[in-house]
């Protein structure tokens, strides 16, 4: 992170805005991709995150690092988008009864391919991301921040505003749940 960037952002320095976007956009995009599993939506979220950062930088008191604060905003924006998508899916079922063209969701993507996964692991990663999508929200966040964004548990705890122990437990439960889901997929494939 460039030095004194917070002061420069607060002073409205446009070069600082650009530096922040350039230095943080991959983290924001990767986190959003892991959570919402859609490229188009993840980029929209990244834009919204930086707009929020620029608009509320005055409120940033430095209790956490700027990077942690940005992660927190990213996670919240992703959760909003995930909840909106879920509502949309439910609503689409109802509206499709009346109009045939309303069943389609703008950001629906059943087969998500993360661009950062090695080619030989793509198929397995696709299965894993589909299983991650079914995890409870908190487990999903902790798992993605840990496995996809490779953040230490201490930083995940700060982002999620919980204890390190709680993060450890969330990741553990996420892994147990994922293994159960994968076991079912394996059995169904064998049938």
């Amino acid at each position, binding site marked *: 992170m460039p030095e004194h960037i917070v002061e420069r952002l607060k002073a409205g320095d446009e070069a600082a805005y650009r530096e922040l976007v350039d230095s943080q956009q*991959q983290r924001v995009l990767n986190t959003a991709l892991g959570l919402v599993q859609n490229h188009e939506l993840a980029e929209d979220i*990244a834009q919204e995150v930086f707009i929020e950062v620029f608009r509320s930088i005055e409120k940033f008191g430095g209790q956490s690092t700027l990077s942690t604060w940005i992660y927190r905003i990213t996670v919240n924006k992703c959760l909003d988008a995930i909840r909106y998508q879920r509502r949309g899916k439910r609503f689409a079922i109802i509206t499709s009864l009346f109009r045939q063209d309303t069943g389609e969701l703008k950001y629906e993507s059943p087969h998500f391919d993360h661009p950062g996964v*090695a080619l030989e692991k793509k198929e*397995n*990663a696709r299965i894993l991301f589909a299983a991650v999508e079914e995890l409870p929200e908190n487990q999903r966040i902790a798992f993605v921040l840990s496995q996809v964004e490779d953040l230490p548990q201490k930083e995940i705890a700060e982002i999620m505003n919980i204890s390190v122990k709680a993060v450890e437990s969330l990741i553990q439960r996420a892994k147990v749940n994922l293994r159960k889901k994968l076991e079912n997929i394996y059995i169904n494939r064998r049938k």
Partner: protein
Amino acid sequence: MKQVQDKEQWINEVMGSTDGIQRPAGNPFLYEKIKYKMERGSETVPVAGKKMAWGWAMALVALLAVNGVAIVNKIAHEKKAQAAAAINSLVPEMSTQTIYSY
């Protein structure tokens, strides 16, 4: 036994598929896009929010319409009942009386 081993191996491979994952490449025009959005100024309310607001507004209009129809129906029904009561009250006066005591 081999089946269990195969299953465990497959699960481990899937679970490890994100090991060494790379962050996606950044968009060199992201800042310009953000700047454009901020200058337009109308993007603070996400599309989801606008749609929700419209949804709630439509639901409120529908609720008011249903209430309005119910009230109008009730008033019409009461007016009808009043008119019927008024006619009924006149029936004894208007009816021809038969005197049986000749």
